């Protein structure tokens, strides 16, 4: 491991993570500064579990019409986000648990997930450019985030290998430079949507629960 690579994997990585954590906290504080609607009406029920259902919407693709009509979208979503989890996981495995990366099956699985996510990333990019409606609503941030994530997966594939010697190579260094960049950029970009998800879903679910919306007849 070169000095620079070591620096990126440990000190810079942790500093960037700390920055991201601090920015997330500020984001949440910022969000909570907006006044909340206080519910003045009497609740329609005794609780139908809508908050939990709403928060778990991501695990119930059939509840979303666009997905019901096009299940491949959900598959893409799962693969893309598994890739994100794998790539983020790698930023911890490489510096702190490198011995795990000696397991050929594990590494192969990682590469497969990252490879699939990379392909989905390319497809999503194509779709965003080719679909008129998507193109109209897409911002430079949307394109950039997608390109960078796809690149992150590609670098992740290059960074992992059964051969520990390769771990110290340029690919790992580049991977960690990009990871550090991500940690700084994410709080300002659309990638932060996962931080907002619990909020939007909670408030939607809360309203549904209060009004007893969504129960089965």
């Amino acid at each position, binding site marked *: 491991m070169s000095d620079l690579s070591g620096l990126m994997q440990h000190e810079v990585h942790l500093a960037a993570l700390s920055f991201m954590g601090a920015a997330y906290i500020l984001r949440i504080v910022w969000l909570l500064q907006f006044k909340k609607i206080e519910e003045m009406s009497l609740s329609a029920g005794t609780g139908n579990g809508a908050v939990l259902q709403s928060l778990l919407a991501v695990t119930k693709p059939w509840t979303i019409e666009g997905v019901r009509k096009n299940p491949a979208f959900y598959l893409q979503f799962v693969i893309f986000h598994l890739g994100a989890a794998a790539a983020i996981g790698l930023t911890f495995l490489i510096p702190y648990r490198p011995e795990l990366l000696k397991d050929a099956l594990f590494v192969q699985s990682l590469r497969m997930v990252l490879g699939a996510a990379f392909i989905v990333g390319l497809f999503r990019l194509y779709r965003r450019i080719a679909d008129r409606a998507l193109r109209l609503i897409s911002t430079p941030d949307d394109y950039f985030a997608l390109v960078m994530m796809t690149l992150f997966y590609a670098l992740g594939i290059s960074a992992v290998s059964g051969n520990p010697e390769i771990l110290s190579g340029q690919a790992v260094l580049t991977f960690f430079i990009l990871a550090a960049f991500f940690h700084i950029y994410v709080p300002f970009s659309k990638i932060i949507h996962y931080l907002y998800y619990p909020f939007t879903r909670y408030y939607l*679910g809360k309203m549904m629960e209060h009004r007893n919306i969504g129960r089965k007849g």
Partner: protein
Amino acid sequence: MKAINNKSAGRCTINPAPVEPWRIPELLRKKINRQTACSLAACVHCGKCARSCHYALARPDDPFMTPAYKADQIRRIFNRHIDWLGRIFPWWTRADTPRDEQDIQSLKDIVFGTCSGCRRCTFNCPMGVDNAALIRLARGILTEMGIIPEGMANVCRNQWESGNQMSVTEEEFRNTLDWIRCEVQYELGVDDVKIAVEKEGCDFIYALNPREIKYDPSSFMNAAKFFYLAGESWTLPSYGWDITNFGLFSGDDRLGAFMAENIYQAAERLRAKRIVVSECGHGYRSVRWEGYNWAKYRQAIPTESVVETIARYLQEGRIKVDRLKNTAPVTFHDSCNVARYGGLLDQPRLILKQVCADFREMHPNRMNNFCCTGGSGLLTMPEYRPLRLEAAKIKADQLKATGADIVCTMCHNCREGLGDLISHYRLDMQVVQIMDLVAEALVLPDRKTDDNCRAEIKQV
């Protein structure tokens, strides 16, 4: 800001002063709340919402119909003035702000003319982004600037000035109630029907849609009939009886609070134990749910739709019906304001199954139902009618697929909206409301159907 590619309506405003785009950020800051801020920040532009919106489905090749695009019109302003990144690098998130009259006009056409606020996209958004709330937020900002379609502006003004949307005077109100009472007595063959106004201590106050007073009294007559047969103790307030609320449509929370509070105060004044609202989708939503929040009025007594009241009468056997009196195939249209915003899904079905011999669901239904296309005040904005009717193709196909002769709804607005599209798409269907079907199926007690009695009442 980009213009939508349909014919743009002329500038309609209740404020003759020049438009002041610089006020938009200030108004946005004033009106935004945590729920809308979350929705503004959380959209990932996945475009899934387009598959749930009847406008986007009816115009698949028109990217301007995507709900995210419509919501983006207010999101850009939010990004430009409130969000972190958009304030520093606006071009990066396409953050922008309306700069001139043309931008404002474009914004007005999008938020008033291309969304019925049905909230179908909200429930089909993976992130839970409430696009309908964002559209209403934008409408509220424009309304406060005096930029509002003329038809809607007129109704808002009526509500502010007279407390009801059709400017019905108290004298007109009382006269109408009087002849409705006579009519109900005649139909029931009795002479002791009472439609009390401002009577204190009744079980409930009944609040209704002014169209029931002004030009379509059948709905109110039916309600009066059922209340009489059920032996109810009820009254109408002389002021604060209009459940319609154009504060909901225009995004003006102050008007929303004013209209809703009129009813809450009437109930308090008359020491009623409940508020019952007639068959009106947005009226139900406004009085039952949003109004309490707008008015910051802590709800103390139950508020219910007359559909819930009638369902209870049927369950308790207080009125009798015969489903064989309605043999034509009937389908039910869930009003967005009642179903997706109000969760009232079972009671209408409970009634319809008792009063119709052939009740059939349309698909999708309940929370997934498509809008009648007349929601969010669109029926008061004729300038957007061509686009509305084009988008109504989705609903027309849905209706046609049921094979029903009658489509039933529990909303006056839906009745109008469905009627409009049925005539436009030449469907062989009739629109009725739940109380119409209950009235048809009603089994009157024998003693009240005596011909002599009818003649006597007629004479009286």
